[in-house]
């Protein structure tokens, strides 16, 4: 409990903390009760309205939306990691034009609201005569944005390595790509895993923006429930959607945290394995 700001409390301090604890609890209970009471008065808490949310047909409809959210998230996530990696490589590459191009791309797409990027792909592509369809419009927009963000993460991970790593690799005669593959990336990727997972959680949150181009994802399905139900209103539907979405993203954040904690306690295993291979590649390179 004690942190930098609070020292061990004396009897008077403890009494004050007790008093404020009671006041805080009372205030929270009062606010909670007021919310429930008002909702009850509006008839929002009637059992019918909520049990309908758990009817098999409703659940199936929502599960279909969740599946669509997953499909878009997984597709966009995999492509973003791939292109983000390529962009990061371009940003640390030797030719100046590759660096400039990649920097321009990253700065442009990071500065735009994702919704505008979605409109750009959805309306823009059809204006140019391509028919991407809703799913791919959303996925392409997510990839344009997230590959830019991920490339920054990758670049930060690579730059966080000690310069001695590059120097040592060059000293044993490794060419550029084997150096990347065997020395730099295995260490950098380990450091980046928590950030990558956190970005995947953000991406999964952002799939909900597919709503605006009427992609049938989870939130969009939730918004349609009201239309074909006698009892359910948007309120019940969005509470349901919020709870499920929260649980999903919260779990992803926990996984990211787990990897972050583990990195602090476990030495780099992958690095030791890569070392052996690096030496043999260096020998081959020297021989060739």
């Amino acid at each position, binding site marked *: 409990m004690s942190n*930098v*700001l609070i020292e061990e409390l004396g009897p008077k301090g403890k009494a004050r903390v007790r008093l404020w604890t009671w006041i805080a609890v009372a205030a*929270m209970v009062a606010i909670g009760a007021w919310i429930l009471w008002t909702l009850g008065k509006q008839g929002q808490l009637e059992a019918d309205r909520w049990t309908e949310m758990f009817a098999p047909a409703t659940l199936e409809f929502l599960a279909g939306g969740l599946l669509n959210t997953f499909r878009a998230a997984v597709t966009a996530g995999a492509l973003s990691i791939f292109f983000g990696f390529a962009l990061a490589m371009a940003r640390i590459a030797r030719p100046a034009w590759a660096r400039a191009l990649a920097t321009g791309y990253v700065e442009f797409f990071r500065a735009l609201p994702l919704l505008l990027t979605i409109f750009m792909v959805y309306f823009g592509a059809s204006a140019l005569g391509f028919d991407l369809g809703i799913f791919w419009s959303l996925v392409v927009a997510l990839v344009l944005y997230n590959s830019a963000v991920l490339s920054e993460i990758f670049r930060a991970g690579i730059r966080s390595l000690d310069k001695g790593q590059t120097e040592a690799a060059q000293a044993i005669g490794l060419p550029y790509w084997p150096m990347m593959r065997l020395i730099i990336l295995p260490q950098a990727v380990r450091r980046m895993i928590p950030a990558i997972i956190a970005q995947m959680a953000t991406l999964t949150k952002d799939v909900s923006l597919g709503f605006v181009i009427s992609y049938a994802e989870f939130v969009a399905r939730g918004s349609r429930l009201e239309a074909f139900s006698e009892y359910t209103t948007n309120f019940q539907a969005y509470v349901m959607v919020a709870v499920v*979405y929260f649980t999903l*993203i919260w779990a992803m954040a926990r996984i990211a945290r787990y990897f972050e904690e583990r990195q602090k306690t476990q030495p780099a295993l992958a690095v030791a394995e890569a070392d052996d291979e690096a030496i043999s590649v260096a020998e081959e390179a020297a021989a060739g």
Partner: protein
Amino acid sequence: MSWSEFFDTYGTRLLEATWETVQMSLLSFAIAIVVGVIIVSFRVSPIPPLVTFATVFVSIFRNTPLLVLFFLAFFGLGELNLVFSGFTTAVVALGLYTGAYMSEALRSGINSVPQGQAEAGRAIGLGFVQLLRLIVIPQAVRTVIAPIGNLFIANAKNTAVALTISAPELTALSRRMINDAAGTWRSLLVVAAIYLVLLLLAGWGFRGFEERYAIKR
């Protein structure tokens, strides 16, 4: 439609929408600062229920999509008989959302303030609130200006989501112009250019702040 016709027709509306976006960004960020300071004070306070409240608040607002929060605010507050315009709802929801991130940024700032500062504050007899207000938060803020600048930019970009609850901001206008057949790419690129200019200005401003006030640890 030529460029001059385009600006004759949409010039005023572009200005209005830009102003709407700017207002929404600034107001919601002001709320986010207040919320962030309050929540982080709860988080580091010695009162257990306040700590729990702050933790739950941050977790909920960080792990739920902004769109869902907007809808919950829009329809939920409606059910509580508190009906606001799309603009007001968006400002408040966005303020709470960014406020949750703000409190985390401030917390990492607080953790970077040397322990001796808090000890010195207590030694001269400051209570918890005074200690935070006079000693710790002023120093904490100055170590996290860069993350707060990033939050400002993220917050400004997130105002676009308000189009879902019919706030007439820039991205909504881009869609309206496309539907009016004002030229798809022209509409998109003009709006994109406005965003780029606004955010470059904001980024430039925060870098100035940082150079002037930041404490490097």
